[in-house]
């Protein structure tokens, strides 16, 4: 009888220990919410593709005078500067802002000396592991739309 009691106590102890292990294993992990990072476009960007009304212009504009490969736009501290300009949303350097720092859909350029800011759609996908900034705009007639895809200069 004593033997049985001892066995029973051991069994009881075993089940208590097992329950504790199971209870411990079921503990809910705390998951920290992942916040969307702020889209940082700081740096110098170059044009890798340009289209006019859907037709590729990239190879057609490449001379000593002006070319897509020479165009640069540099974003820094809320300001932008353009070098080797081309038909673009704005023709002067100035300030810029995104409509939403985490989920931007629009970028607004305010050229120095201009009272009318220019806004355009903004996409920021990763293409081939590289961030590509695509801007769509009409520098002249509204029916002629241009799309510039830019890549950061290393």
């Amino acid at each position, binding site marked *: 009888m004593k033997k049985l009691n001892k066995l029973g106590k051991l069994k009881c102890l075993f089940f208590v220990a097992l329950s504790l292990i199971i209870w411990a294993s079921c503990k809910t992990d705390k998951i920290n919410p992942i916040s969307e990072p702020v889209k940082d476009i700081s740096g110098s960007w170059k044009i890798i593709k340009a289209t006019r009304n859907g037709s590729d212009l990239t190879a*057609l504009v490449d001379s000593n*005078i*002006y070319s897509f490969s020479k165009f640069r736009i540099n974003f820094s501290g809320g300001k932008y500067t353009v070098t080797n300009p081309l*038909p673009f949303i704005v023709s002067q350097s100035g300030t810029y802002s995104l409509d939403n720092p985490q989920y931007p859909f629009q970028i607004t350029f305010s050229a120095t000396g201009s009272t009318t800011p220019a806004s355009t759609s903004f996409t920021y996908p990763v293409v081939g592991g590289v961030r590509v900034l695509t801007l769509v705009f009409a520098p002249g007639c*509204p029916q002629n739309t*241009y799309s510039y895809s830019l890549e950061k200069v290393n």
Partner: protein
Amino acid sequence: MKSKINIKGNTLWKICALVILAISITCCLVSVTSVVQPTTAIAKQVVPITLNDSISTQIDGGPLVANYVFCFLAPTGWAAAQNMTVTYTSTLGNGSMKLMPANALEPASGNTLTWPAACAAKFGIGKNLVNDVQWVVYESAQPISIANGITITGQINIKLTVGADGNNTSYFPEYVTCESSDGISDDAYWGNGHDYSLNSGPCLVQTGTDGDLHDYCNLQLASINPPKSLDNEFISLTYNNKLDTNTMLKGNTNLYLCVDSAYLSDGTALTNFCVQAEKTQLVQTTSNSGLFALTFWPRSFFNLTSTQTLTKLVYYVTDQTGTKRVGYGGSTTTPFTYKFTCN
């Protein structure tokens, strides 16, 4: 013997639903039997166009309630949506048509495109050589109950005021008719496989203004793309050497843009831009194509200040020496012209 086909109930229901859907959405075989359209028109006049059509129906599950839809390709400068009225007569009744709401989506595109965008994606610019045309879409003001197994005959009547932009334009009209339920679908399981009818009209030549000539029906000796632009854009000049009938530059592969004059908004003429240099050289698009092109940015080309605006370009195409030149219609004395305007 056990069947090897093992379809779960859930999957079976999906397949049945798809089959039923495929049958029930197929409606109408639309055919336009004739297009009555003039080939000439005078600006600001109303041009009548009539489409005689016939619609045969096969609809499972009872009558289909849908709208007649009419899509029309017109020059952008005509602003057809503001200058056109459309009515119809048919054996199911008569009525007027109204512009398709701008946010209405075309069903055959999977409801991803608006009607004009879906027409542009499917039918492009028709037989026109220049992309300065646009689709405008109309639907019957009232939906129509279409029964199974009937043939509807009727007419679509268009009254179009042409030449709103003050230019002289020639182009190929395109006409598409369908109903709103199936849209411009190619999934019809009977007839020609289409749920729509596509018809091309003959070249419509509109004259009667002192504006520019925009000929989208015929190849041009020289043309600039986009056909309408301002000076702060890239413009592409194309010269078709195979159309040089007076043989002045025929066979010559060293061709240059010679700007006779460029006019500013204050009337000032910029000259001394007729040079044979890298920035004016036209490059053959592909070997032996005979097409020579130059893409340039006018504001930079003419070194304009921020306050100057170009209104017109007057130019020739020359050989490397600049002594042989070709202008409008192959003339050596009448230059080509291009106006910087959006209309």
